[in-house]
């Protein structure tokens, strides 16, 4: 079926899963505010939110199997959108599941916390769908404003408030850069639609156009902040440490996935024709992010900060895929995104389990000898660390993620051999801190008098179990996931136009 986006009712249909989530989130917001704060109410709203997300996942899967297409319009109807939606929805599902139990421990009562996650996810789905720079801006803001609040959710914690303030100020600053970039690109090309911009860029000589170049640069800075790529990463460790851990997990996975997916779509669909202009800035951004993330992580003693620097390094790996500018690069990008999301989410779930009320016990010393008291948890954490590192077999899907990224980088028309070398070398450096966590858990004796971490709730255990299982299973049979990500890549503008023009 081909949606005619100029027709409002067909536009609504093409926006179906997004609208379901938005309408449900608004109804839940009313319900959340209806009753006085209590843990029972918070759990009830959380359960309803999980049901809503499951329904949206179902609808998205149904949409993705029908081979839908659309005419040229404000939103895209393609597999890349559905794939991004699914990653973000899974992240939101995990964040709410972890949050329901974490909030009880930390005595965070507002039931709205879960609804805000839903609103942020609605923003991510808008981002995944956006084919117009106006929608990109609205999606980023819808997502970010909800996350600013979520980062400061724990009102008793001064750290949480500080993280929230830093995220808000730098996030708003980055949004202004993004918006000015959009304005200048609109000024240079006369359109905010990505495909039209793409066609005009291919047709005209924009590689020397000053307004276009400055606009592209500002857009790169804005996205650099949102995806936390060095040198625009200063906020990430502080915000990740201060925010409640389920929200940290949400920010490190779903927020990054949505921002990266939009980044990739803008870069391929709108700016694909001026690769000469953006190639070397993206190249350097990738190299610096990999280098800074991995080397600074070596000196971190707090697990949440360590994972924050690890996520900065992973932004660098994903930027390598963007720099290739090929379909193989986009497929590797999606595959890597899935691998990273699973491992990172699982690692934060373990951090929640080992942590104690007041968001303490997140230091590396608290993991000493974990193997002796909670072997299952230690094995799960080891799998997540090895997967983030890209270790074969025990790291499961993480190894294949890096493998395809390297293949895409080397086989690109403009070979990224030097960047591939940087990727491999920094991965070796990353072993220094990932394996250190494993060493501390398995080889150090449990300190005298250290309390055994309490048994986590069923939902937290479920998240850890599903993440481990998915990593190992996809690590044994990666071919289906790879086929799925190959089928889900965004197309360059010329091909896009061919698809869109054909049915008319």
């Amino acid at each position, binding site marked *: 079926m081909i949606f005619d986006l100029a027709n409002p009712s067909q536009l609504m249909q093409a926006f179906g899963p997004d609208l379901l989530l938005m309408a449900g989130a608004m109804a839940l917001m009313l319900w959340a505010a209806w009753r006085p704060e209590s843990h029972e109410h918070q759990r009830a709203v959380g359960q309803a939110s999980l049901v809503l997300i499951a329904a949206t996942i179902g609808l998205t899967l149904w949409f993705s199997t029908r081979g839908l297409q659309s005419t040229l319009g404000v939103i895209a109807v393609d597999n890349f959108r559905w794939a991004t939606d699914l990653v973000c929805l899974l992240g939101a599902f995990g964040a709410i599941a972890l949050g329901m139990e974490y909030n009880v421990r930390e005595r965070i009562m507002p039931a709205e916390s879960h609804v805000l996650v839903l609103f942020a996810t609605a923003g991510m789905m808008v981002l995944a769908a956006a084919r117009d720079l106006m929608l990109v801006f609205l999606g980023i803001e819808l997502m970010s404003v909800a996350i600013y609040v979520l980062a400061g959710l724990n009102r008793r914690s001064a750290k949480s408030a*500080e993280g929230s303030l*830093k995220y808000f*100020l730098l996030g708003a600053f980055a949004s202004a850069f993004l918006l000015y970039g959009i304005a200048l690109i609109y000024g240079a090309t006369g359109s905010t639609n990505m495909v039209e911009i793409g066609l005009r860029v291919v047709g005209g000589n924009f590689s020397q156009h000053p307004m276009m170049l400055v606009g592209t640069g500002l857009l790169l800075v804005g996205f650099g902040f949102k995806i936390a790529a060095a040198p625009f990463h200063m906020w990430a460790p502080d915000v990740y440490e201060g925010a409640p851990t389920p929200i940290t997990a949400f920010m490190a996975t779903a927020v990054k996935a949505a921002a990266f997916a939009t980044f990739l779509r803008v870069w391929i669909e709108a700016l694909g024709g001026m690769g000469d202009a953006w190639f070397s800035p993206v190249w350097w951004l990738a190299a610096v992010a990999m280098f800074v993330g991995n080397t600074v992580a070596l000196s971190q003693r707090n697990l949440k900060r360590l994972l924050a620097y690890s996520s900065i390094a992973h932004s660098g790996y994903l930027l390598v895929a963007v720099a290739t500018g090929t379909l193989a690069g986009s497929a590797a990008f999606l595959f890597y995104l899935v691998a990273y999301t699973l491992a990172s989410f699982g690692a934060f779930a373990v951090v929640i389990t080992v942590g104690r009320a007041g968001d303490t016990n997140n230091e590396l010393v608290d993991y000493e000898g974990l193997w002796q008291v909670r072997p299952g948890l230690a094995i799960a954490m080891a799998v997540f660390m090895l997967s983030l590192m890209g270790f074969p077999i025990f790291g499961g899907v993480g190894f294949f993620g890096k493998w395809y990224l390297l293949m895409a980088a080397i086989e690109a028309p403009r070979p990224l051999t030097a960047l591939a070398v940087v990727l491999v070398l920094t991965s070796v450096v990353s072993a220094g801190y990932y394996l250190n966590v494993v060493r501390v858990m398995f080889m150090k004796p449990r300190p005298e008098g250290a309390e055994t971490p309490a048994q986590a709730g069923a939902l937290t255990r479920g998240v850890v179990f599903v993440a481990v299982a998915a990593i190992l299973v996809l690590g044994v049979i990666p071919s289906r996931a790879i086929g799925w990500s190959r089928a889900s890549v965004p197309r360059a503008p010329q091909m896009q136009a061919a698809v869109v023009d054909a049915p008319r």
Partner: protein
Amino acid sequence: MLVESLALSAVLFTIGVVGVLTRRNAIIIFMCVELMLNAVNLTFVALSKVYGATGQVFVVFTMTVAAAEAAVGLAIIIAIFRHQRTVNLSNINLLKG
């Protein structure tokens, strides 16, 4: 007129950026961010003279977003004031590294 408007908005945007980077008071930083957003609005309005109404539609969206951001941002600044009794970023440094 177009070139002058674009130049003015570029100057305003730069003033906003310099303000964000040099000031230490959270509220003044936030005001500088608003200045940046409004500089962009000026660009959009100026461009709508050349390309039609899209730019003006964009301005309406931007103003709505800026209002939502202001509501959330001021609430966050109040939350931090309750903990720290200050909104000066030089004195707010629990998180480091």
